[in-house]
């Protein structure tokens, strides 16, 4: 970045991005923006951020607990210095234009001073009805402090339920009650807006046939999550609401209120319910007993996400979840048992079935709420027919209003990974509307210069947190402090309550200054989560951050020995002794840093690669695109129209022209990658380029994998052998090039899932159902008289694609289901094609004459290429050879290997607009890494005492990273910028000539002394 920033940058430094909605999407967008050094204000109407995800029990497809995975994001939110969070706040007006909006915000009174509240819980104990708090995000909050990581970490008061304000004020020891708190309105300057408001869940009580809200044992999917949750109303045991009994038979009914035409229904598909029902059924059997019978009533099983088909297969085959393809007619409650009897019809049986269940879960989907409609009005954005935000077809995060971006469910119904992708994409787009903050350009040194403490006698301060009950309830903190004072050099020993609260931190800082301390011991929780926070505290008072020791009194003592307080006390004294003895030997250390390369490498020059490259290049990042084909464009080159009717070749050509003309993009076509070295931020990749395969090396800080997938062409149903058997891609071209040929066709048969959802390629290719519907609609448009048959297994027109599916049915396209055991067959007699298939409704085989058979062949991973790249870059792959991201739920574009980001069909099959979004997300995530400008290698590196080194080569041989070498002076040399700090050489060196900084021998010995000599 240039240092001669002009006045405009400084002025606009105050301008920020406004993120509306504090669910996982909003949090991701806000964190991305903050990490790429943009100022962000995150507002949420609720009194704590977290959104819907924090109410879930577990998440598919890994079925992990959510809170553990999402909570670091929540607390991270509070830490970032570019990020401000305003709960209980709404936007009431937005004026101006992109880059220079002014937003009017109204904040409801909380009646609690966030700076002072320590969430001690006293007020909640005394006034349970009037105090709101969501630790573990549960209504039973005040008595349940198992996951106290709500952000902000504070209570809020419902003043309408308080009669005696003085009594309330009296219980608060922190003096945090603000009785006179009022709603306040503020107008702020905003560069751009990210909307991540999500949607409401449908309330099925409006339907009269399923008894929701009337029958105790009929619950919604989300209520069932709460019932199963360990932090839920039944403390994690599965119970019926009517009698508290454990159910033996649970049924799920899909598409409740979705994909319907009745009163109260919406026509679209909510996209997530199939997966959550499968998950809930699996978790039910796994956690609550194999004897519980689980049944899912569904219309089409929509498991179209990455590896979701495998999840579905597991649910059916391993967990023996019963799948019934039917939309039940109604539920009747038995008056005596409160059991529920479901009436449903099967497609191959003329009479209705009735079956009794103990519990019924209604899989309800997303609805846009009234409040969101108002917000859209205030923002002035267009809506689609379903009241969701209307967006650009090729760029789904763009709303109709420039400068206002949307992500998550409010764009269209979607699951968490897709929300995370869109959030990062929206953040990347929003970031482009305002410059990097002046502070970031300045190098952002917020800390005062460090005091030199070398040669000073240690003056140690010991601060012990009681962490509410967590430590203070088990240990006698005062006695502990007295024992600390008996150690030499300990000048101060103080209890600090919640040491990590802003108020306590300020107290500690003051005490360090007053007593001129030069060493600090914190007795509290885990250094894993809190060391950075206290290291920053030291830096604020001018001390080197390595002069603090964290003693883990909570996780490793009071939590583990909760029932033995006396022995816990003895252990606490010992542990504190270790910390005090250790800190005495701590030395100020300097972190090693290297300048980060500000170049990016994009592997693959399709739509995904080009989109990512343009986004990076527009932000001033020199970007290389490596493409093996002679020209840019990738698979999109073989596509003509999207389902929305947009022109793909024109779009691709536009991208190619922009990319080729961009001064920050270097395009390397006919190029393959052959080698790769370096570390995140400083990679070096070798490529062979051009017809003659010239070798060159590229230095880059980040890598985006956009290598795409291959159009599958399996030799099935006569593809490649019979005339007029073609793929959907072929049909897409034919529709554009030869409409006359289409008009001459009387009957067209399409076959779905060709080469997908079967052995060899078990996953769903996601794109083929919409491709079939798209082409069927187009055939009908060109030639209304042509009969179109679609032979399918499950129609997976997720989200608003359902509209097109319905339109096709309305136009007379015939959809006939088949099963894997009963596949259709194609035969040619005298040049005429015929397709034979089983019709479940007729109960017999039928034969359809076809002028043309169109196979939905989908995508298949480019095994050879992903394998080759995975070996060079050291990246993991899925079983079906796509790249495997770091966390399938929460980090869908980051690879586990830092510096690598994943987008497009190299991740999993997806349509163009989804590829574009993920490309923007990858570019945005890459920028958060590049924004750091420096690679911090930490201070923990091996150091050689050259006087002691005997050049015995032990370290040279022991190092797993080949770092040590014998230098010109004939002694071992270990370069700090290469050392990984593993300490193996330090342990092996026979002359003890190598010390691992931060863990030097005398420091470890001092700690051992502290442990054993008292």
């Amino acid at each position: 970045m240039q240092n001669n920033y002009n006045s405009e940058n400084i002025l606009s430094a105050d301008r920020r991005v406004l993120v509306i909605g504090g669910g996982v999407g909003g949090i991701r967008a806000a964190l991305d923006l903050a990490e790429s050094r943009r100022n962000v204000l995150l507002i949420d109407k609720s009194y704590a951020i977290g959104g819907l995800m924090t109410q879930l029990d577990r998440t598919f497809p890994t079925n992990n607990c959510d809170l553990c995975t999402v909570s670091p994001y929540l607390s991270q939110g509070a830490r970032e210095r570019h990020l401000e969070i305003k709960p209980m706040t709404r936007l009431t007006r937005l004026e101006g234009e992109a880059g220079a909006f002014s937003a009017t915000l109204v904040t409801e009174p909380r009646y609690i001073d966030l700076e002072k509240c320590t969430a001690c819980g006293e007020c909640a104990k005394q006034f349970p009805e009037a105090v709101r708090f969501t630790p573990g995000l549960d209504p039973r909050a005040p008595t349940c402090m198992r996951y106290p990581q709500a952000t902000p970490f504070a209570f809020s008061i419902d003043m309408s339920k308080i009669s005696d304000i003085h009594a309330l004020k009296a219980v608060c020891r922190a003096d945090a009650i603000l009785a006179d708190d009022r709603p306040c309105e503020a107008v702020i300057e905003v560069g751009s807006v990210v909307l991540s408001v999500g949607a409401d869940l449908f309330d099925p009580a409006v339907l009269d046939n399923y008894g929701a809200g009337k029958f105790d044992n009929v619950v919604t999917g989300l209520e069932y999550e709460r019932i199963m949750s360990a932090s839920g109303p039944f403390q994690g045991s599965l119970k019926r609401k009517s009698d508290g009994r454990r159910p033996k038979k649970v049924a799920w009914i899909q598409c409740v209120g979705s994909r319907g035409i009745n009163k109260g229904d919406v026509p679209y598909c909510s996209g997530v319910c199939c997966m959550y029902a499968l998950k809930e059924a699996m978790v039910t059997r796994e956690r609550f007993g194999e004897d519980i019978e689980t049944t899912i009533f569904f219309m089409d099983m929509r498991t179209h996400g990455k590896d979701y088909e495998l999840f579905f297969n597991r649910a059916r085959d391993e967990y023996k979840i019963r799948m019934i393809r039917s939309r039940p007619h109604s539920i009747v409650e038995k008056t005596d048992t409160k059991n529920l009897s479901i009436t449903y019809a099967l497609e191959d049986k003329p009479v209705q079935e009735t079956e009794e269940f103990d519990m019924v879960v209604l899989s309800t989907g997303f609805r846009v709420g009234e409040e969101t409609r108002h917000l859209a009005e205030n923002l002035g954005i267009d809506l689609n027919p379903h009241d969701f935000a209307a967006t650009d077809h090729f760029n789904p995060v763009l709303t109709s209003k420039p400068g206002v971006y949307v992500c998550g469910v409010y764009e269209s119904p979607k699951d968490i990974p897709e929300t995370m992708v869109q959030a990062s994409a929206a953040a990347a787009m929003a970031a482009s509307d305002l410059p990097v903050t002046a502070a970031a350009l300045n190098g952002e040194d917020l800390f005062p210069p460090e005091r030199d403490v070398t040669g000073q006698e240690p003056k140690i301060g010991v601060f012990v947190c009681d962490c509410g009950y967590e430590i203070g309830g088990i240990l006698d903190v005062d006695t502990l402090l007295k024992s600390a004072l008996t150690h030499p050099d300990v000048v101060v020993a103080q209890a600090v309550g919640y040491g990590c609260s802003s108020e306590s931190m300020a107290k500690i800082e003051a005490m360090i200054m007053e007593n001129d301390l030069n060493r600090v011991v914190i007795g509290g929780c885990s250094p894993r989560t809190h060391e950075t926070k206290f290291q920053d505290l030291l830096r604020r008072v001018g001390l080197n951050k390595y002069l603090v020791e964290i003693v883990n009194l909570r996780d490793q003592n009071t939590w583990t020995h909760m029932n033995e307080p006396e022995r816990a006390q003895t252990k606490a004294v010992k542990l504190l002794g270790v910390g005090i003895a250790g800190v005495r030997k701590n030395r100020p250390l300097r972190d090693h840093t290297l300048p980060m390369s500000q170049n990016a490498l994009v592997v693959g020059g399709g739509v995904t690669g080009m989109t990512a490259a343009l986004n990076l290049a527009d932000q001033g990042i020199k970007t290389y695109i490596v493409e093996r084909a002679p020209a840019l464009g990738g698979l999109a080159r073989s596509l003509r129209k999207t389902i929305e009717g947009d022109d793909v070749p024109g779009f691709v050509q536009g991208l190619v022209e922009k990319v080729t003309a961009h001064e920050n993009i270097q395009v390397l076509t006919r190029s393959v990658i052959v080698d790769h070295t370096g570390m995140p931020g400083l990679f070096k990749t070798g490529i062979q380029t051009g017809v003659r395969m010239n070798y060159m090396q590229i230095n880059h800080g980040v890598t985006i994998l956009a290598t795409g997938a291959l159009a599958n062409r399996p030799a099935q149903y006569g593809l490649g052998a019979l005339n007029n058997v073609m793929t959907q891609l072929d049909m897409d071209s034919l529709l554009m090039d030869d409409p006359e040929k289409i008009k001459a066709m009387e009957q067209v048969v399409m076959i779905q899932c060709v080469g997908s959802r079967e052995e060899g390629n078990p996953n769903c290719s996601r794109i083929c159902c919409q491709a079939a519907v798209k082409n069927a609609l187009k055939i009908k448009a060109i030639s209304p008289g042509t009969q179109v048959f679609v032979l399918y297994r499950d129609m997976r027109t997720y989200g608003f694609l359902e509209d097109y599916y319905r339109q096709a049915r309305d136009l007379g396209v015939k959809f006939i289901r088949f099963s894997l055991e009963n596949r259709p067959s194609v035969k040619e007699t005298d040049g005429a094609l015929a397709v034979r298939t089983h019709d479940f409704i007729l109960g017999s085989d039928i034969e359809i004459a076809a002028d043309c058979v169109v196979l939905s062949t989908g995508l298949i991973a480019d095994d050879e290429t992903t394998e080759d790249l995975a070996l060079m870059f050291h990246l993991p792959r899925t079983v079906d050879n796509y790249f495997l991201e770091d966390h399938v739920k929460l980090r869908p574009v980051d690879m586990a290997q830092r510096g690598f980001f994943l987008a497009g069909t190299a991740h999993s099959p997806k349509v163009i607009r989804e590829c574009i979004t993920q490309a923007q997300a990858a570019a945005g995530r890459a920028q958060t890494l590049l924004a750091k400008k420096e690679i911090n290698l930490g201070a923990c590196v091996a150091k050689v005492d050259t006087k002691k080194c005997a050049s015995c080569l032990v370290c040279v041989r022991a190092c797993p990273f080949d770092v040590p070498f014998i230098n010109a002076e004939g002694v071992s040399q270990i370069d700090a910028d290469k050392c990984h700090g593993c300490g193996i050489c330090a342990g092996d060196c026979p002359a003890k000539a190598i010390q691992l900084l931060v863990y030097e021998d005398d420091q470890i010995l001092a700690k051992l002394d502290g442990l054993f000599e008292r």
Partner: protein
Amino acid sequence: MSFQAKLTSGEFVVLAEMDTPKGVDISDLVTNVRYLKSRVDAVVIPDLDNGVMHLGALAGGAVMRQQGMDPLIHVCGRDKNRMALQGDLLAAHVLGIHNLMVVKAEEMINGDHPDAKTVNDLDELGILGMIQSLISGTDLAGFELRGKPQFTPGIAVPPIADDTQLDQAVADARQKVAAGACYIVLQPVFDLAFYTRVIQSFTSLNVPVIPSVFLLKNVGMARYISINDPSSRLSEDQIRRIRKAKDRDTECIAIAGEMIRSLKGISQGIKISALGWEDRLPAILDSAGL
């Protein structure tokens, strides 16, 4: 024995190709050549090879000389007219560079300066004639030179995909041998059976025939060659062999080594290209038993 002496005495010659850097940091070049001393007879330095701007071959050849290695430089007419070519060749002699390979240069459009002007004042035959003229002590304008340069010129044969191309290539090479070419360098060999015939065909020209061996680096590169250069005749079996190998890097070196061993029996020399992985040339030589 020098490269030139080995050629004339009919001994097996080993050439290794090394590209000059794009830039002026020659440390890799110097380091890599040190490991090749007394293992190869000459190092081939291409000149602005593949249409990519590099440090010029004259300087590269001079660096080889400094390191005690016999250089062999490319000569082509794409970038220089006969003035510049003659001047540079005289300079080459003075710098101790006597081995030349006359090549048909890659077209400018395929290089990294596609907008650069192509010269093509002389074609390969013209250049060979020019070299003979200089050796005999006269420049192309007929003026006498003060001191005669010494050169051993050879030629590189373009890719040969089939028998028709083979016949044409032999006919072309025959003309060039008549114009003074002392040796013939063939394209990288992946199909040994086919190239055994190719080598035999060229042997009729009575000059040493030197096939090339190319280090494949990974599956991606092998696949790229098989798709984009059908004349390479790189087989699916070879790609499969790399894919199946436990250690692909080592396998690639072994494949190159095996090819060199096989070619040793049927040719009078070998040119090894590592295309940027010159640090692995010693390992390839080890694998080939050279």
